[in-house]
């Protein structure tokens, strides 16, 4: 039995630059693989390649055991939930219509979509009566991300792709959403690729951490194993983590 998502030796060049140089990883049901790396390390490109938003120059992506090249793009995209940093909600649609879209695209009946929207809003901690009819411009940053997550879940896709979903939030809201996401993962058991540059978030969210450096996989390990990782890039990330705990030893200016 193969994993839900399998990436084999993925290569990708954008604008003449090799962004991914042979990345292999897989994600199965209930797993959250965190793609950790600096800006430009290629982590976002992996998500876009999985969604067929960027052309790949080598390797293979298998979804549900079937190569992406054999999937109709529209169909495979509807089986993935995608969340980005600045929500990407349709500004001209209400929260309800935004969340309902994937369910509508999946061909669900209008009443079922309305019911599902209410369910999802509650799942992400927003009162349906209050939020259904609002427009994205009437939401705070944290509420937008909650709605974006609800939308990603609407058609009940087996795979979630999250691109720094909480990066633009204040630390308190971020922590709140991180915990809520963990709860959802436990309940829904979806596979997820979760992109972040925040080592704390990686350790908190991951079942496995895949550290990327210059478009290649540097380390892939469980959070506990990652703390012991010895590569230079892993040490650099871990050092940034340790530094914050030693408040009394801050360099004095």
């Amino acid at each position: 039995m193969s994993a839900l998502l399998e990436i084999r030796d993925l290569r990708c060049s954008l604008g003449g630059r090799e962004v991914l140089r042979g990345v292999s990883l897989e994600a199965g049901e209930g797993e959250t693989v965190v793609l950790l790396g600096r800006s430009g390390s290629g982590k976002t490109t992996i998500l876009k390649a999985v969604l067929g938003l960027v052309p790949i120059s080598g390797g293979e992506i298998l979804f549900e055991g079937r190569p992406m090249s054999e999937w109709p793009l529209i169909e495979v995209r509807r089986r993935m939930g995608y969340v980005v940093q600045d929500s990407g909600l349709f500004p001209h649609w209400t929260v309800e219509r935004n969340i309902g879209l994937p369910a509508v695209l999946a061909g669900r009946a209008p009443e079922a979509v309305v019911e599902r929207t209410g369910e999802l809003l509650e799942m992400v901690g927003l009162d349906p009566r209050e939020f259904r009819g609002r427009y994205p411009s009437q939401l705070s940053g944290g509420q937008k991300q909650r709605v974006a997550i609800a939308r990603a879940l609407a058609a009940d896709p087996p795979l979630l792709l999250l691109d720094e979903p909480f990066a633009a939030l204040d630390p308190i809201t971020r922590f709140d959403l991180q915990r809520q996401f963990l709860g959802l993962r436990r309940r829904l058991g979806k596979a997820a690729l979760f992109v972040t540059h925040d080592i704390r978030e990686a350790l908190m969210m991951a079942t496995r951490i895949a550290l990327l450096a210059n478009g290649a996989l540097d380390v892939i390990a469980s959070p506990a194993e990652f703390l012991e990782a010895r590569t230079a890039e892993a040490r650099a990330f871990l050092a940034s983590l340790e530094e914050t705990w030693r408040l009394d030893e801050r360099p004095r200016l």
Partner: protein
Amino acid sequence: MSGRASEIASLSLEHLEVVALAVAIAAVIALPAAVMLARRAAWRRWVVGFANLAQTVPSLALFGFLLPLPLIGGIGKRTAVVALALYALLPMLRNTLVGILGVDRTVRELAVAMGMTARQILWQVELPLAAPSILAGLRIATVATIGGATIAAAIGGGGLGVFIFRGIAMLDTATVLAGAIPAALMALVADEGLEWIERRFAPR
């Protein structure tokens, strides 16, 4: 006096007819062209360049150019409508294009990533979000065409320009104003009315 009133009414009607026809033709060309050009950056320069060129030719000169042409030329309404449609093309083309290209990149990418088809993205995302800009183009084109149509009388286009040219020839200000005032009012009403519609489509 009632003779002049009824003439104002009938020329106003004729004026409206020419304007409506010209704007409609321009819209039918400009909207699909803009949708197509939004996806073809290489063609954009050429087509927008042509529309720009049409705009820079003085209207009386453009009527002059069109007169000798077969089919679309000649003295009469048809030439007037063609020339006015050419003028109305640019604002509508440019505004529609700006509206579509102005759709937030993340929003568009999400639409694609969620598995919307190109047609769904166009009708449900791009055009609604571009609507205020498209309507602004329609408003600018309509107001300009109402003004431009007064000149169309010079080549037999009819409309309120008939009064203006007649008044100039007779050195009679009252006759000039009998054409100029209704035309100006028409432009004002069109501007206000279309702006009201535009506001209803404004982003929330």
